[in-house]
């Protein structure tokens, strides 16, 4: 070999026998390899710098709860304790009619209501969003049932499923009384088949048994109102 003594003493496999002008002793990586890796890393950083913000932008709403608020739905004299009165409420602001929904409201009645009676439920406000796939149910007075027009879900007076495909009772809204006005909180809560309260779930997601773990609620929706 034509290597000088200086070169023969080297241990690094990258500098021995290479005889590349400018290669210095103790190189741990070839320059070609270093340039390849660093330009790929630069490309990766450049791509990530627009992809990650864009991705966060797109999936951010999953973790963001829109603001909920108390809505005035009428006077205490408007509601009885043995029949439902429909009220139109706003559940998404800024989009007009598309953001409105209906709730059926009546006074809490110890004779029929089996769930716990506390400061959140002086009035029972049943959401009309069907627990099957979200169509609007209506209260049919003659049958004393909530009936869904889409796939035939049927619920009783308390919103419990009595027929059809729904997987849990109808959701409810918290209510409160301010003076002689009844107010409704625009954030729903879900109930299981024993009317035990759960943080809100989408339609089609059971909260009985293992269902409450299979269908997790949004983390920031678990805060109490």
């Amino acid at each position, binding site marked *: 070999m034509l290597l000088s003594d200086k070169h023969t003493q080297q241990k690094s496999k990258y500098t021995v026998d290479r005889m590349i002008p400018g290669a210095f002793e103790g190189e741990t990586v070839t320059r070609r390899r270093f340039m390849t890796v660093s330009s790929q890393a630069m490309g990766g950083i450049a791509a990530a710098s627009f992809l990650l913000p864009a991705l966060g932008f797109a999936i951010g709403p999953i973790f963001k709860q829109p603001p909920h608020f108390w809505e005035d739905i009428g006077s205490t004299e408007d509601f009885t304790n043995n029949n439902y009165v429909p009220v139109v409420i706003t559940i*998404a602001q800024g989009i007009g009619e598309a953001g409105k929904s209906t709730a059926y409201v009546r006074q809490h009645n110890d004779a029929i209501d089996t769930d716990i009676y506390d400061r959140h439920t002086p009035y029972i406000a049943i959401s009309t969003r069907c627990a099957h796939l979200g169509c609007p149910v209506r209260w049919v007075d003659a049958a004393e049932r909530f009936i869904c027009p*889409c796939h035939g879900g049927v619920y009783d007076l308390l919103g419990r499923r009595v027929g059809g495909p729904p997987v849990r009772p109808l959701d409810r809204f918290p209510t409160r009384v301010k003076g002689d006005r009844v107010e409704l909180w625009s954030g729903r809560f879900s109930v299981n088949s024993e009317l035990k309260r759960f943080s809100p779930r989408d339609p089609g997601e059971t909260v009985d048994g293992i269902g409450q773990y299979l269908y997790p609620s949004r983390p920031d929706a678990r805060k109490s109102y």
Partner: protein
Amino acid sequence: MPKLPAPPVPAPLKAPPPRPGESNGKGGPIEGAKAAGINVVDWVDERTSLSGGARWMMFRKVPKGTNWFYTLGSATMFAFLSQAVTGVFLAMYYRPDPAGGAYESIRYVTNDVFLGQFVRGMHKWGSSVMVILVFLHMGRTFFFGAYKYPRELNWVIGVVLLILTMVMSFTGYLLPFDQRAYWATIVGVNINGTGPLIGPYLSDFLRAGPEFGATTLSRFYAIHMLLVPGALIALISAHLYLVAKLGTTAPPWIKAEQSSELRKAEA
């Protein structure tokens, strides 16, 4: 004084020799136009070598027995192109405003714009045509056994294209923003939500929040006209590249010829 010989001219600058069957040089205006067209194509081809790729793509050997069923794939592609073109022009009028503007812009396209009802009808009915053609094309591939080695990857790409076509149908259905569009989307998003563990997050992603809200419509619109079409174009290109690369299959009823002269000669 003796005249100097003409300097050598580079080949591209020389007048081309007359083509066979043409009179030398001075032709009529038709021949001049023809020559101009050929010159433009030659100019581009000399700088890109695109004609080789075009020949590779267009002039392929196809097996004996190729029949009308083999046109379903290109029929699907033309359905997609029709959707793309009509969709671009519909986007010139559409306004993804959930507070009434979306419905009003669709009403305006349908009732007031010249040929608006026709173009919107092309897009609306064309989407059903495309879905039907995708399934027919898929059935042809399946029943002819054309998904087998070495074409499995093209089948996989085709399945992704089928799913993306469904995503286009689903997101496009909301855009008219009438009662049917709204409730169909509510139900569709909630069907997504019934998937365990990730379902609730998937429906939140689609709705941009826990309820159908102010940005759900524009989100569907962006998915419908930017995100999925880009993916569709890229995957259709890959699909076509593989078709040209691997060639097409003969129908299953075409048997290999056992007793040809060539085989005898080989044996």
